[in-house]
């Protein structure tokens, strides 16, 4: 208004807008508080377990040659953090590389099989059979073919994470709503268009469910493979320190690998939430 006063409608809109913003901020604050409160029970439980463990160790009820006290492990982390960091970096590189490569290949192959039923019919039985063979059987083969160290470990991790994602993607790409399929069929959509517009979005919840499984699988595979094919990494550190009975080092390496696994799982969950528009659709996952 030119005379400097607000009209009633404008004022009502402004108040309404401010009220909505206030509610939005309130909602965000409320969500943060709820998230914090959700973390409280597991945090309290963890503190309780560690405290009990410390007391039992102090009284000799948990022998140190089986499980060192939390203080001993904490001391090891404090004094040898640079050693843990060195080996953790190696394992993280192996796990993340294998995770990315394995899952990328799984998605591509699942897409190819979806676009070409003939390819799917020809190769799917062998893909299923390969999963029946334990990964440890393939490990020496990869080590002989690719040499010890990073390439063979990444290859093994990729192989280990590939299958859950491949299977879930196949399921997800098939889970498109029939109506959408029919619509695109009537519009003469190409296979690539179907893949981009309806099949990939439908597969997102399945993909992220598989990614969470392969997040833990990636670190476990890296650790196990390091026992066989590496001279660095948390898995190697676990084996070597156990052979020389350095139990605090061994347990520090084990806990570090558990934390890294949780961190990767957290990253996958964050990515899933950022894509909630698609990933939130499959409630059953």
């Amino acid at each position: 208004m030119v005379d400097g006063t607000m009209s009633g409608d404008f004022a009502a809109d402004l108040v309404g807008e401010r009220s909505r913003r206030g509610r939005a901020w309130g909602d965000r604050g409320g969500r943060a508080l709820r998230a914090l409160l959700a973390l409280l029970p597991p945090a309290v439980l963890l503190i309780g377990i560690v405290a009990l463990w410390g007391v039992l160790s102090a009284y000799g009820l948990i022998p140190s040659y089986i499980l060192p006290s939390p203080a001993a492990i904490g001391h090891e982390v404090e004094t040898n953090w640079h050693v843990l960091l060195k080996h953790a970096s190696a394992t993280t590189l192996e796990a993340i590389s294998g995770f990315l490569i394995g899952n990328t290949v799984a998605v591509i192959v699942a897409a190819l099989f979806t676009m070409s039923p003939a390819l799917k019919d020809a190769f799917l039985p062998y893909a299923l059979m390969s999963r029946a063979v334990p990964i440890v059987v393939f490990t020496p083969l990869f080590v002989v073919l690719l040499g010890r160290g990073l390439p063979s470990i990444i290859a093994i991790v990729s192989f280990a994470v590939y299958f859950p994602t491949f299977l879930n993607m196949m399921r997800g790409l098939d889970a498109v709503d029939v109506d959408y399929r029919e619509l695109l069929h009537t519009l003469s959509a190409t296979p690539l268009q179907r893949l981009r517009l309806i099949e990939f979005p439908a597969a997102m919840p399945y993909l992220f469910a598989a990614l969470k499984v392969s997040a833990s699988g990636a670190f476990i595979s890296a650790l196990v493979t390091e026992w066989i094919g590496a001279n660095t990494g948390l898995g190697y550190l676990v084996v070597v320190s156990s052979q020389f009975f350095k139990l605090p080092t061994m347990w520090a390496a084990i806990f570090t690998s558990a934390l890294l696994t949780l961190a990767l799982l957290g990253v996958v969950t964050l990515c899933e939430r950022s894509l909630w528009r698609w990933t939130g659709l499959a409630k059953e996952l």
Partner: protein
Amino acid sequence: MSAYPFRNALILGAALAALHGATASAATPVTVVLGYIPDVESFGAYYAKAKGYFAEAGLDVTLIPAGTGIDQVQMVDSGQATIGIGGPEQVLAAVDKGVKLKVFASEFQTSPVSMTCRKDANVAKPADLKGKRLGVKQNAELFAKLFLSKNGVSMSDVTPTTIGGSDISLIIAGKIDCMITTFAFNEPALIEQAGVPVNVLRLGDYGLNAQTDSYFVKGDWYADAANQATLVKYMKAEGKAWDEFFKDPAGLSKWFVDQAFNDGLNVEQQQFQGTTQVKYMADAVTADKGIFWVNPKTWVETAQNTVATGAAKAVPDLTALLTDDIMEKASLAKH
């Protein structure tokens, strides 16, 4: 002052680079796959490399640590390694399958492989095992049966329990009386550090001697005289390192741990290992011939034991498998 300083500098730089390349390429590459993860058992190779003994000998040595899943024979046979360091049983099993190898040096004259018993179990000799609880490592079952049978004890006379490869918690906890196999200077020291006194029975004293950590190459590769000369240079360089070790095993064991070739080492255990392992590396033969001597008598015993466990069908032609030419020419220190 030259009229073309920049051009001359370029020519000089290129000449220096070519000279460096020529010098670098003169070093003979040798890849060695060790017998175990890096610890004082492989001291000689690491020390010789760190102090430049290999470089002085004109060798460019790459060391590949061993570990679970490493097959030294496979690596040598496939050309991934020049020299393999491994157990004689492993070599004999491979030779039995037709692999052509040549053993030219052996680190241990007495096998460090042993059985470790709690002192309070009162096992001073194999016959005392009757009625005792015996922990048998997963990959040592055949060895355990052979050891018992050679010493008048059968598996039914003991209560066997399968244990993990590096599991000493059961013997510390008193759940088992003895465990087999152990390395005489590894597990016993760790068990005693946990407060449990032990007796160590060396399997070599009971009919199961072997030259553990024997050095071998591919048979075809060895046939070339130039390669034999390379092995002599290699052993001279490594032998120099070991000679120093014999003079100060505790001090140099600490040196090894401080170099962080391997992050999981226990310095007390490594010093114990170092001071003890020299006794297994030396005997009357090495006092006469020099350390790392290949002893055919020990190999005969090992070969017969390998046949007895079923890992080989027959004792091979040891004159074709073994050679003392390299150690004769290398002429290492006598200890």
